[in-house]
C-alpha cells in the first residue's frame, strides 16, 4: 500500500502537523479530521489548501496530486457579524 508523509501548516504559520503513513486512498475529509484533532482546533469549519486551491473533501490524496513532502495549509471559514450578542 502506497503511503505519504506530508506537513499541514495552520494559516498563521504558528504550528505544523506532520502526518505520516497516510494511504493515498485517504480522502481530504478524513485527513482534515486528523489534523483538526491533532491541532485541537475549535468546531468551526476548516479547509485544506494546496497550491492555492481549496481541496474537495471527497477527493483522495492521490486524486489531488499531493505527494510525500508536500505542505498543505489549513484555514477556517468563518463569518463576523454584528447581530449576535450575548
Amino acid at each position, binding site marked *: 500500500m502506497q503511503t505519504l508523509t506530508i506537513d499541514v501548516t495552520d494559516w498563521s504559520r504558528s504550528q505544523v502537523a506532520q502526518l505520516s503513513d497516510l494511504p493515498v486512498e485517504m480522502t481530504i475529509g478524513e485527513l482534515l479530521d486528523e489534523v483538526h484533532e491533532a491541532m485541537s482546533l475549535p468546531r468551526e469549519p476548516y479547509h485544506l489548501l494546496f497550491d492555492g486551491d481549496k481541496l474537495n473533501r471527497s477527493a483522495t490524496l492521490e486524486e489531488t496530486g499531493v505527494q510525500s513532502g508536500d505542505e498543505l495549509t489549513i*484555514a477556517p471559514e468563518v463569518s463576523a457579524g454584528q447581530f449576535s450578542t450575548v
Partner: protein
Amino acid sequence: MSGQSHRFFLKFQAPSGVVHEEEVHFNSLIHDVAFSAVCKGQLPNDGRWEPVRVEPQWADGKLDAVLISVAGRSDTYGRAIFRDRAMEIIHTKPTLNDALANEKTKIRWWVEVRKAQSEAGGRRRASVRHRAYPLLSLDCHDVGPQRTIGVDDSSLLAVSESLLRELLEESAESLDRERADFLVGHLVQERDGRIVVSLRSRIPASTEVDGSLVHFAFSARTFQAAQQALAARASDEVILGWHHNHPPPCGRECLMTVPACGTENVMFSVDDRVVHRSAFDRPYMVALVSGKGAGRRADDPLVRAYGWRRGLIREMEWSTF
C-alpha cells in the same frame, strides 16, 4: 502540545429536551501559560513547550477550575472559561439558539470531565510542532506612549496613526457593507518585560470574501492570501490581528439624521468572537472594530480593541504612535 489526561465536554439541555454536547479545547489557555513563561524568560522561545497537562480542579465535588501545565509552568483558570464558551455555543448553535428564542427560558449547561483514552495502537499519525512566538526584543521608543496600559497591565496595544487613519477612512466609506483587514506589525518585548503589540499596517481581506450590512465572511483562501501578501513584502512584520467595521443598521441613510442619533454598534459580537477564537488564538492577537459611536456621525467612526486576557476575549485599551 498534546497529551491531555482529561477531556472536558460542555453539555446543554433545553426544557424541550434538546441536548447538545461539545468538547472544550484549551489552546488559548495553553498558549497563555507558554507565552507568559516565555516573556518572563522561564521557557525558551523555541516552540518545544512539552509536556502539557490539563487537569480538573475540584471543590466540594464540583469542577471549580482547570489547571494548565506547560513544561513545568502552570496556572489555574476558573469556571469563567467554561461559561464564556457555553454562551458562545448557545448563541451560535442553531438548535440551542432556537430553543432559547422559542422557549423563552434558560438553557441548562454543565461540564463533564472524562479521563482521556490512550490512543489505539498506531492510530495517531500526526505530530504537531509549534513555531517560536514572533517576539522582538527591542528598546522600542516608537511603539506608543507609556501612559496607556492595557487591561492586562503587562501588555500594551499601540496603533500607528497612519494605520488608524486608513482604518477610519475605510470604515467611514463602507457604510452599507462590512469589510475587514489583517493587521500587521511587530510583537515587541520592552526592557521592563512588557509586551507591546505594535500595529503598523494592514492587508485588506479581499480574496474570496463576502460582506453585507451585517456580516463579513472569510474563506480559507482569504487567510492564505493574506499570508502570501505578507510574505511578498519581505519584511520582519507579522500578522497580529484583524479589523472589521460594523456599519450603522440604517446604512448610508444614517448620515441623513441630524444631529446624530444615540445608536452605537461598536462591540464584539458572538460571531466576532468565533472568528477570533478560530483564526487568531495566540495570546497576543488582537481585534479592532470600527463603527458608529453614540452621538457621532457614521462617517466619524469609533474604534474599540479586543484581545485575549487569561484565555478570555476582553475589551482592551489602546494608544496611537
